[in-house]
């Protein structure tokens, strides 16, 4: 390191001074000083405290700090007077204002270059204590702009423009700065400098190329990116109230697939970036919040921006956790200056998106008696509409209050949020409290430090939905709603709940399930992140972070004896509780160097250590004296069930680094690598190396493009690299003896163990090799911008539970066998269709991902049975097969209904009667037991095939924003095309067998008199089979959000001390176009984390549609 020391004095300045010397000799007056523009030091803020320095010196130092270049006439520079600067984290504009103070100079910033020139009109000599009346016109390219807010900086005084864009404001200090702001436009700050007329041209706030984008361990100019990164803005995150920020990402970025899997308030969303890259392990992306990998996601309101890292170049820096993509979250932080208070609130009224058409009493009794004549007596039954009894109008209240501000030395942001949702099903509720506080400090000249604290508490009063297994005593509220006979009332005459008894298996009625089952979840998150950043020498920076995360959760559950399910056991209560801690320490150096204006290097290298610990415990007992204990006196139950507890620990130790090289602003090269050591990996494979590289060509910067001004951006990108998935759970590679619970000997429970797994010392991570090529095209000064990517992502060493010969005593062993491909296209088009008084901006993203299983263990099909446990007989409803995407539905092909005189195909468990279900025979075995692919005249397991694909052909999001004067209108559609859904719920309802309620499809059932139908006859002896009858097209188009907002005129709100106020009314999920006959096509039974459980529906809590009113206020 010694070699750097001599340069430590002023290496940069020496170079610069040399340049200045050369300049003196030149007769060319205009010289561009292009200092290095590096990813990590490029900053908008300037900290500079100096008195009496020359303007030249000031510029040099500003250049150094910000990376802006100055363009100035040498003569002007010489003439300029001395400068006094007191800048602490000041904006570049403020810095320049101070530099210009008293100088006859003005400036203009364009493309990272600051042009300094002589002020055109010599102003009258002004004094700071004089005041002026200022008027003028604010316009954009289409003319005068109405409703632009103009505030005298540092005061609450201001005005807004009139319909023609004209404004006037009186008695303003002659050296004051006016701040012009308008939604969707860049805020401009203009010093009056004694002028009385100031006309302002507002510019559209587009995602500029100079904008900084957060990448792993640093920031980069968007124009310097070589990888595939999508950004989601704070506005998009705040477009409608969401219980969690991940929800707000839905449809916002190409390549990012976000899906609601159950409408239960507070339930998880399924997140996939470029498809699922694993079969048995998690395919959830890594979430990094302010540099903390694996952190808890803050609420939407507290997020400044989200970057989605998609290709290997972007994610390889996260090594063994990068294969599923990375979601980088930057939370909001304070800005120096005036204290800013913001208040956001909204109220939504919610209703269930749809109700199903179920049989009412008269039809129901006919239907049941058709199944079994005389089953129901000929008496007057009530007609209970269970959907009406169970669904209610829900609501969401959302409040956020934030304070931010601070001095140049210490800035802060504090925010508190309350989200309170009453579900659309009785007694379901979700509440979240969260606070975020962040402080950034300038400790010393070269030392920055900061701390961030995030705490939240989620409270969920749940209800049973999407149950794994229904049946007596375990039915969920939705399945009970749709299956219960309408012929019973809610309550018996004695006030107790009725039960559904028709099936012979007693079942609680849905109102009882919703109201009586106690499900209380509390989960707390506490996250603290501290950083220190030391500027060792001007080019070299060291940053160290220390973070800790603590999560705890408690699920309390009580099934009271007022319910059938609880009656047989006299009340059952349990508590599941757990907590996890995650500690991280990151240390990295960043070094930036530019050589000869041409070669721009940026290097980063570091080490990180992260440890994870998770604890769990469970206790359950039954037979309580009183239901009043709920789950809070488990000792009060006389039958204690076996308790359980567990501890898992793992550590991750990593070295990582990155090299960026930019040649002449045109050719960009990035190399990333991470070397991860994980305790989860098996003995022989503890360390893994994940490299990636990318190149990009900024064609728009080439000289031959100068003649094509229409093209504002043209960049070609290509990347290739390897990432991993730390798929192995702790201890999975070890040979273990497992303990068996509840083994009875001599009438008491005894200790028992049995072999559980054999060791696999070679078990290792899943590797994904991804190639990505992309183009970024901007036309007409970015009025049209297009990003397109093609990716090819091959995952190998897939972790499979390898089926072992069962006679080995083991059923399976985890092995790295198997490969999978995800390949796809992504398009993102943003256009400014109309600009001016009326603006119209469109964003469209479309993603297509094709998933293919390339290799399975020994090439064999893997059958998956995830049907609800009580729907016995369905077995193997899904299949994994080489050459096919994941999650394929598997079963028999339904061929309609047998008619009288048909040839009934023989087969065990298959119907051979008119009105029965007819399945297709197309396969059989020859004498050698090999499948022939030809009909063999009988139905059996050989006749099963793939009957549906849950993977969409493409998904898309379309956002249109219209603005006119103070009004804004936003319409956001989101959709999925070409995916199939498999409804176990409709299977149970429409099997036409079993004494439960059905949809009105039952009215179309086969009878000897009504044979032209594909709904089979009512029958008691039809077994449940996985068949194409219950596979549906799940495509949908959904209007996720429509919102109309109005920004109140400044004149109107000034009196209340506000600087900004917007009120809006919006609607979510108001319109859904789909052919799916279930409640909601946005569903996946137990699919939130699974890669295989795709597109399944059973007992799901329907999503809600809502109407929202809200306000955003800023003081």
């Amino acid at each position, binding site marked *: 390191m010694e070699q750097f020391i001599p340069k430590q004095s002023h290496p940069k300045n020496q170079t610069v001074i040399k340049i200045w010397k050369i300049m003196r000799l030149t007769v060319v007056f205009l010289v561009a000083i292009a200092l290095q523009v590096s990813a990590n030091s490029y900053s908008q803020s300037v900290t500079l405290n100096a008195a009496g320095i020359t303007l030249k010196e000031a510029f040099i130092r500003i250049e150094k700090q910000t990376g802006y270049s100055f363009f100035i006439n040498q003569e002007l520079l010489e003439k300029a007077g001395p400068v006094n600067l007191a800048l602490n984290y000041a904006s570049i504009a403020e810095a320049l204002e101070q530099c210009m103070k008293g100088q006859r100079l003005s400036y203009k910033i364009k493309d990272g270059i600051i042009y300094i020139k002589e002020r055109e009109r010599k102003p009258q000599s002004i004094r700071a204590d004089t005041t002026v009346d200022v008027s003028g016109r604010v316009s954009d390219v289409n003319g005068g702009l109405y409703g632009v807010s103009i505030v005298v900086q540092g005061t609450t005084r201001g005005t807004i423009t009139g319909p023609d864009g004209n404004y006037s404001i009186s008695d303003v200090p002659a050296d004051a700065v006016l701040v012009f702001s308008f939604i969707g436009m860049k805020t401009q700050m203009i010093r009056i400098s004694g002028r009385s007329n100031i006309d302002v041209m507002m510019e559209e706030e587009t995602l500029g190329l100079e904008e900084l984008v957060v990448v792993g361990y640093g920031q980069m100019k968007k124009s310097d990116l070589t990888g595939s990164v999508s950004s989601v803005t704070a506005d998009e995150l705040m477009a409608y109230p969401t219980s969690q920020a991940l929800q707000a990402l839905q449809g916002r970025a190409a390549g990012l697939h976000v899906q609601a899997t159950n409408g239960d308030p507070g339930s998880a969303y399924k997140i996939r970036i470029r498809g699922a890259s694993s079969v048995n392990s998690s395919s959830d992306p890594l979430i990094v919040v302010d540099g903390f990998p694996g952190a808890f996601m803050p609420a939407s309101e507290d997020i400044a921006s989200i970057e989605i890292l998609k290709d290997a170049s972007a994610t390889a820096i996260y090594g063994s956790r990068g294969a599923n993509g990375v979601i980088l979250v930057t939370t909001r932080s304070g800005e120096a200056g005036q204290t800013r208070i913001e208040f956001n609130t909204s109220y939504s009224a919610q209703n269930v998106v749809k109700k199903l058409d179920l049989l009412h009493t008269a039809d129901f009794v006919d239907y049941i008696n058709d199944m079994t004549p005389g089953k129901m007596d000929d008496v007057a039954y009530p007609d209970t509409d269970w959907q009406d009894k169970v669904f209610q109008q829900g609501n969401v209240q959302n409040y956020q209050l934030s304070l931010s501000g601070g001095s140049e030395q210490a800035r802060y942001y504090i925010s508190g949020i309350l989200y309170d949702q009453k579900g659309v099903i009785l007694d379901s509720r979700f509440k979240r409290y969260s606070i975020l506080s962040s402080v950034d400090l300038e400790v010393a000249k070269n030392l920055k430090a900061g701390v961030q604290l995030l705490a939240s508490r989620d409270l969920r009063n749940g209800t049973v939905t999407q149950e794994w297994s229904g049946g007596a005593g375990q039915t969920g509220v939705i399945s009970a709603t749709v299956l219960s006979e309408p012929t019973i009332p809610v309550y018996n005459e004695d006030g107790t709940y009725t039960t559904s008894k028709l*099936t012979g298996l007693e079942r609680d009625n849905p109102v009882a399930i919703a109201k009586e089952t106690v499900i209380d979840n509390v989960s707390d998150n506490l996250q603290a992140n501290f950083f220190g950043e030391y500027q060792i020498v001007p080019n070299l920076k060291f940053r160290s972070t220390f973070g800790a995360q603590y999560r705890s959760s408690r699920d309390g559950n009580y099934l009271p004896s007022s319910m059938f399910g609880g009656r047989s056991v006299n009340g059952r209560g349990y508590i599941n509780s757990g907590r996890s801690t995650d500690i991280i320490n990151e240390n990295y150096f960043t070094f930036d160097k530019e050589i000869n204006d041409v070669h721009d290097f940026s290097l980063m290298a570091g080490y990180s250590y992260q440890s994870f610990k998770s604890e769990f415990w469970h206790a359950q007992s039954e037979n309580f004296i009183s239901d009043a204990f709920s789950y809070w006196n488990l000792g009060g139950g006389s039958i204690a069930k076996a308790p359980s507890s567990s501890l898992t620990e793992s550590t991750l130790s990593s070295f990582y680094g990155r090299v960026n090289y930019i040649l002449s602003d045109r050719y960009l090269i990035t190399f990333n690598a991470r070397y991860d050591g994980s305790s989860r990996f098996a003995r022989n494979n503890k360390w893994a190396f994940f490299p990636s590289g990318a190149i990009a060509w900024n064609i728009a910067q080439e000289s031959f493009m100068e003649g094509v001004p229409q093209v504002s951006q043209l960049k070609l990108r290509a990347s290739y690299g390897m990432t991993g998935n730390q798929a192995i759970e702790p201890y999975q590679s070890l040979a273990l003896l497992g303990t068996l619970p509840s083994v009875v000997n*001599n009438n008491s429970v005894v200790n028992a163990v049995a072999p559980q797994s054999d060791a696999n010392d070679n078990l290792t991570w899943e590797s994904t090799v991804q190639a990505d090529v992309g183009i970024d095209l901007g036309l007409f000064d970015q009025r049209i911008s297009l990003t397109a990517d093609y990716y090819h992502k091959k995952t190998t060493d897939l972790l499979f539970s390898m089926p072992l010969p069962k006679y080995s005593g083991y059923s399976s062993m985890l092995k790295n066998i198997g490969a999978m491909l995800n390949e796809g296209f992504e398009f993102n088009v943003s256009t400014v269709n109309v600009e001016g008084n009326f603006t119209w901006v469109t964003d469209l993203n479309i993603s297509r991902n094709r998933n293919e299983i390339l290799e399975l263990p020994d090439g064999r099909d893997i059958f998956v049975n995830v049907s609800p446990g009580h729907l016995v007989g369905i077995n193997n409803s899904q299949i994994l097969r080489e050459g096919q995407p994941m999650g394929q539905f598997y079963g028999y092909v339904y061929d309609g209904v047998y008619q009288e005189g048909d040839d009934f195909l023989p087969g065990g468990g298959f119907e051979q009667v008119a009105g029965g279900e007819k399945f297709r025979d197309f396969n059989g075995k020859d004498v050698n037991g090999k499948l022939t692919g030809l009909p063999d005249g009988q139905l059996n397991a050989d006749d099963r095939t793939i009957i549906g694909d849950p993977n969409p052909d493409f998904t898309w999001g379309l956002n249109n924003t219209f603005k006119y004067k103070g009004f804004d209108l936003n319409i956001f559609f989101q959709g999925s095309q070409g995916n199939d859904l498999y409804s176990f719920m409709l299977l149970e309802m429409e099997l036409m067998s079993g004494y439960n309620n059905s949809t009105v499809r039952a009215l179309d059932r086969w009878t000897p008199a009504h044979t032209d139908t594909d709904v089979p006859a009512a029958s008691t002896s039809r077994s449940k089979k996985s068949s194409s009858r219950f596979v549906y097209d799940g495509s949908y188009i959904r209007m996720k959000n429509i919102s109309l907002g109005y920004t109140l005129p400044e004149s109107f709100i000034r009196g209340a001390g506000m600087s900004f106020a917007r009120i809006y009314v919006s609607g979510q999920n108001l319109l859904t176009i789909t052919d799916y006959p279930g409640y909601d096509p946005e569903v996946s039974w137990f699919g939130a984390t699974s890669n295989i459980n795709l597109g399944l529906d059973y007992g799901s809590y329907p999503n809600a549609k809502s109407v929202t009113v809200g306000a955003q206020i800023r003081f």
Partner: protein
Amino acid sequence: MRLYKLYLPAVFALLLGNCTDLEENPVGTLAPEGFFKTEKDVQTVIHGAYGKIAADDYWGRELAAAILLRSDMVDIGNRGTVPARIQINDFNCDGFNAMITRFWPASYAIVGTANTAIEGADFLEDSAGKNALIAEARFIRAFAYFNLIRLFGDIPYIEVAIKDPESVKTISKTPQAEVYNNIIADLEFAKENLPLEHPQNVRSRPSKGTAYCMLSDVYLTLGRWEEAYSNAKWIIDNAANLGYELEADYQDLFIPSKQDGMAEHVFAIEYKGNQNVWPYDYDSHPAFTGMAGADEIAGWDVTVPSLEVYTAWDSRDYRKKVALADSAHFGGVLKPYTEFSIPRPHIAKYWRFLSGTEVDSDNNYAVYRYAEVLLIAAEALNEISGPTPEALAYVDQVRERARNWAGTQTDYPEDVLPGISKDDFRELVLEERRLELSFEFKRWWDIKRRNIGDEVFAGANSLEPHVNFNSDQYLLPIPQTELDLNPNLLPQNPGY
């Protein structure tokens, strides 16, 4: 500068200090290495094997229900039930059958656990206790294989604790004769080394007598009558010392509160109420045999005898009354079986005195009880010497107990009439087994070993006619996935 100089080394020191070892040291789980230190450790693994026997995928449901359904005494009740069960019952299953694909792995998991215990015992010092543990584990292994071989014929035979499952991926099936020899060797070892009495009189653990009993059953199955007889005879001769006798009241055999340590139980599979953590200690038979919606039991109508089983059974037989329920309460009202959801009398042995819940009972299931020892002796002796008075006396002992109608002596069934022919006596013992051991998972084995399938499934007096039955059906198909994984196991059993 100074700061800079000091800081960097400090940082690197921090980095190096952080490079912790990445070994895993799990708490709360057990590693097999170094586990076996005392007899108790081996016993814990043997308990693991019992746990797997009493589990849902073995005796708790799949295996036991399949044995019932296969016979002519138990039919499918509700035909809307799982197709796999219907296929087992109707003799049209294939290698994908979901019952088979559960109890085949379960069987081998029991074998694997027993093998682990046997090898674990090798770490112990030699002692009588050690040999008794090995004997117990070998008994369990023999039990699992005896069921497997009768269900599947030639099977892969595993007798070591497998460290690398890949190592057995290409083995071939072991012929039945060889498997039987191994079973006999295990049971001979068990005979030598098990204690004379059940440990603490716990009938769910084997004693010397249990080993003799199973051995006599193995020989009976093989038609090795001399050995079947001698092993059974040894138990009968030593019954008092071994602690075996017939219960006075046939009903008591099925009252959970009386089953622990029950003198008639030679070997039992034990359950305890309100204890199950699925799939362990899971007993589905009360629900499987019960009728839906009854006050007595929330049954599932799965394993339900045909009506002929009921009508052909002499109503004077107390055992019929104990075994079957021909009426039940619904909403407090007693209704005849004609009003059951499946209008046939249902098996009542496992729920009439239910303790615990439907799937979480306190039943103990007799694998062998003393009455069967007597019947084995009678059957074997008849084959050796004809219907001798000794042979008749064994059957009469069983009948005598049956005449005790809950304390009231009746005259049915009468003693066997002397002078009966050898063939008739053979027939009579078989019938006696059918009724005495009704629904106790025995009948299918009898049909198979006596090769009377054609008769009982197609004959004029068949209780449960099945057109699909043929002699191939004496064996089940080996799970297709096993054949796919290891083609050396081909061919599949004939007929599948």
